[in-house]
């Protein structure tokens, strides 16, 4: 986990996090924005939000938690603004779990197809469920996800269980594969 050194400036913090989390922030933006041009804007928006937020960083939480909170909150605001023009409703994990798999009978042939299907699934989820699934895929544990999202650990555990079910159904692998 990234820790705070006493006396780190806004610039130090930004340099450190933009180097450490560069790829993770791009993946996070992909979960929110399908259009490459808008996604580029979103990544830059997240970087700007991080820079501005570091003025108030007091080390009460880990740098990793801070970065993910800022990135998810900035991305959710971005999507909220974009969605005013889009009519397709977002669904919860429960609804995604109950819905019929649109790719029923087909398996994802390769990694790229699996990734595209995964992104398609994530982008139709409501903000909090999207934040939990992205954090889960980033390899964060339930405690870290609870800290980022402010959901209770039991709620996160339930959501992760649902995520595994949804992923297993979507990818025809049985629960164990989507661990």
């Amino acid at each position, binding site marked *: 986990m990234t820790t705070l050194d006493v006396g780190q400036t806004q610039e130090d913090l930004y340099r450190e996090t933009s180097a450490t989390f560069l790829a993770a922030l791009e993946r996070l933006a992909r979960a929110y924005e399908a259009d490459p041009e808008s996604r580029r804007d979103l990544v830059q928006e997240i970087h700007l939000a991080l820079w501005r937020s570091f*003025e108030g960083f007091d080390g009460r939480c880990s740098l990793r938690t801070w970065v993910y909170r800022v990135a998810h909150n900035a991305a959710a605001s971005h999507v909220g603004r974009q969605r005013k023009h889009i009519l397709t409703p977002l669904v919860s994990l429960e609804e995604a779990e109950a819905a019929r798999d649109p790719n029923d009978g087909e398996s994802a042939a390769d990694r790229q197809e699996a990734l595209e299907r995964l992104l398609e699934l994530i982008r139709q989820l409501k903000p909090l469920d999207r934040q939990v699934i992205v954090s889960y895929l980033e390899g964060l544990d339930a405690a870290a996800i609870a800290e980022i999202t402010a959901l209770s650990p039991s709620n996160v555990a339930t959501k992760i269980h649902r995520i595994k079910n949804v992923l297993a159904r979507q990818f025809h692998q049985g629960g164990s594969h989507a661990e």
Partner: protein
Amino acid sequence: MPNELPPKDLKNVWQSQDPEAIQMSIDEIRTRARNFERKIRRRNLREYIAAALIAAAFTFFAWHYSWSTIIRVGYLSVAAGALCFAYELHRRGSSRPEPRELGTMGCLDFHLGQLERQRKLMDDSWKWMIWLIPGMAVLMAGAIVTVPIGKAAPFLFVVILWTATWFWLMQKRNKRKARELQREIDELRA
């Protein structure tokens, strides 16, 4: 390859995405931060200027085109209402989260805060629209008092009907949106 399963570990698929490496230099980020602040200042300035122009125009009418005291009061009320309306709009715009709140608030709290803000905006929309009503009402009253009622009646009827319908439809739409947002808030809090 119909029977070939996707890679076993979806986390691995997720984490091994090719990065586009959209990186920003410190100078670039500083410039963007300055531009962002400038954009906000310009937006505020535009709002102040628009409100000041409307207020100035109606004050000018009150001074030069009022054929009675009541009409003058009406124009001045519209000018004051425009300033109050602009203030409410500014207050609404400035209730955006502070940069550090993005990091101090967990996603649930942040999301709830955003929804609450939108719900309040919808619920309270009459509070900022209502500032325009007194001035318009006084102007209409002035027209009734100073112009022969036979001549003014059709015009007043259309204006009152149009204004009332517009307010009613806006209120109805905003209340419906506020209820939808409240349902979402309740679901998240459950």
